[in-house]
Structures are given as structure tokens and as C-alpha cells.
């Protein structure tokens, strides 16, 4: 199933920070992990991840460092910061409220008919 880009849009920060919650990752690794965890539900243009990452870095939610592999390949790793972890807790809360509300709406408000 393919998801609309706009639908992912609002939860981009939540998704990206969640991917970095446990371990530092580089961009392409995050894309692969996202595919794996979501069973390829989130099909979006991969390059759009980078403006998001750079924005998170500007906001201080993540920081980055370059690692040079033995093969000479350079990878830019991202690491969640303390303020990024706080933000992640916030985003998770917001998501809870949002998804609960959406579920209530689509299930039909039983009280309205009582």
C-alpha cells in the first residue's frame, strides 16, 4: 500500500526521531530501516529526507558526524540530542491524541446517537 506524501508530512519528525532513538544512523540506512519497519508502506522520494534531517539539525534535535569507512566511503551519521529526545516524547504524545481522535471519528461517535 502506498501512502500519500501529505499524510506522512505531519509525522515526519516523529518518524525520523524514532529511527534515531536507539542508534545513530546515516540517511540511506534510515530509508532502509523505514522500509523494513513499515513493510514499504511509506514510499516517498528518498531525497526529501535530507532537508528534514538538516532542519532537525538546525533545531538542535539531532547532530551529525562524518564516518569514513574502510572502503573510503564517507557516511554522515545522525545522532539524537537530549532536546531531540524530549521532542520525541512530545511528538509521541501528540500522535497518541491524534490517532485516538481519528479512530473515534471513523468508528462513529456512539454518544451522538444515544
Amino acid at each position: 500500500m502506498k501512502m500519500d506524501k501529505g499524510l506522512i508530512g505531519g509525522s515526519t519528525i516523529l518518524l525520523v526521531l524514532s529511527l534515531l532513538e536507539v542508534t545513530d544512523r546515516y540517511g540511506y540506512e534510515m530509508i532502509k530501516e523505514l522500509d523494513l519497519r513499515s513493510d514499504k508502506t511509506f514510499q516517498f522520494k528518498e531525497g526529501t529526507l535530507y532537508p528534514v534531517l538538516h532542519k532537525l539539525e538546525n533545531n538542535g534535535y539531532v547532530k551529525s558526524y562524518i564516518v569514513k569507512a574502510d572502503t573510503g566511503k564517507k557516511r554522515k551519521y545522525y545522532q539524537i540530542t537530549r532536546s531531540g529526545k524530549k521532542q520525541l516524547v512530545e511528538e509521541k504524545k501528540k500522535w497518541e491524541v491524534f490517532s485516538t481522535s481519528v479512530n473515534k471519528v471513523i468508528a462513529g461517535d456512539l454518544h451522538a446517537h444515544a
Partner: protein
Amino acid sequence: MLMPKKERFLEEVLSYIKFPFDRENIKTELESHIVEKIDDYMEQGYDVEKAEELAINDIGDAKEIGMELNKEHNALLGWLWKITNGMVVLFIIGNLFFVGVPFFITFFSSSPINDIDKSSIVYQMDIDEQVKLDNTVIHFTNIVYQDNGELNIFFEHYDTKLWGTGWSLGTIGEITDNLGNTYRARSACSAGIKTKCIHSLDNFSKKADTLIISYDSYNRKYKVEISLQVGENDE
């Protein structure tokens, strides 16, 4: 391996980035993404050209990505940041200069003893007398007697504490000889961590055989007696 699609993509993305110093990093990051993706497609059995085409298709629109990235790499802030860093560097260099110059003078300036005309020297003595006033160490190093009757006392002084106690060396004390003559000294000092000084006494008695420097001020005292060479050089 030539990858024209990849190059074109990167070039177009970078054309939207206004702050030049961030372009290289952005290029490196996007390029490594594309290259890894191409490798993955090739592992799946695609040839290079097809793999490149698929990878570029997956990454998205260069214009959209370039414009979004440019928003996060604000040129004005970037330049401000660069300029601020530059000023910090200049500030540090400036400070090094002001700290460094006294060091330089201390270690590389020649001894003031070289300023004395060699042909005028009647005798020269190396001495090693050291006294201490609070945290200031005064070290008498040389005596030079010139044919015009001028006696030069060379000494250096320095503070044992890095940041002085505010006690500056005003005078080294009263200068007399064993015959009871008192002398007024003309003094000259160099800058530096160790201050090198000369005190010059005019018309020093040829007959005196001991130079006495005695300090007695502010409840602090010392007395240095230096035996001089007398007679041998009388003409």
C-alpha cells in the same frame, strides 16, 4: 565509472544552494546515498545504467530537494557565522601576539651587556648574587667598569608569581662603596617576563674595592656586597 545522471542530479540540487561553503557537504551526503542505492540495485542484478536510472528516480526531484535544502542552509546566517568565526580567530591571534611578544623579547633579545662599547671596558665581572623582595627575585649578573669611570651593574628581576602582586620594583636600593661614597644610578630596563636592567653609576671611585647595594624600605631589607677588581688595571 561515469554516472551522468547522478552528476546532473547533484549539479542541479547544488545550483539551489546559495551558501557556497555548505555545498560540498551536501554533495557528499547525497552522492553517498545514490552510490549505495546503485550498488544495491546492481546486487539485485541490474546493470549500471539501469541501476543509476532507478536510483535517481527513487531520490526524487532535484529542484524540490535543492530548494528545501537551501531553506535549511541560510546564506545570511552562514556568512554571519563565517565572519564571527573569522573574528574569533583574529582575536586569538591578536592575543597570542601580545602574550608572545614579551616571550620573544625575553628569550631572543641580546644581553644589554653587548650595548657597551668593548674598547671602553676596563674590566668586566660575572657575578651571581640573588636576593628576593616578596615575590620579586633580583639577580645581579655582571659588573662592567668603563674607562670613563662609569660602573654598570647588570641585573634581571622577575616575579615568582605569574600574576604580579602589584608590587613593582621601584628601586634596587641605595648604592654605596666601601669608602662611603653614595651613587645615583641611571637605569635602563628591557621589557619581557624577565626584566633585564642596567644601572649606570657615573664617576665610580677607582679606589673602592667593594660595591654595596642595600635595600631598606617598607620593612623589607637586603644587602649585597660585591668585591671589585681594583688596582690591576690602573694605568
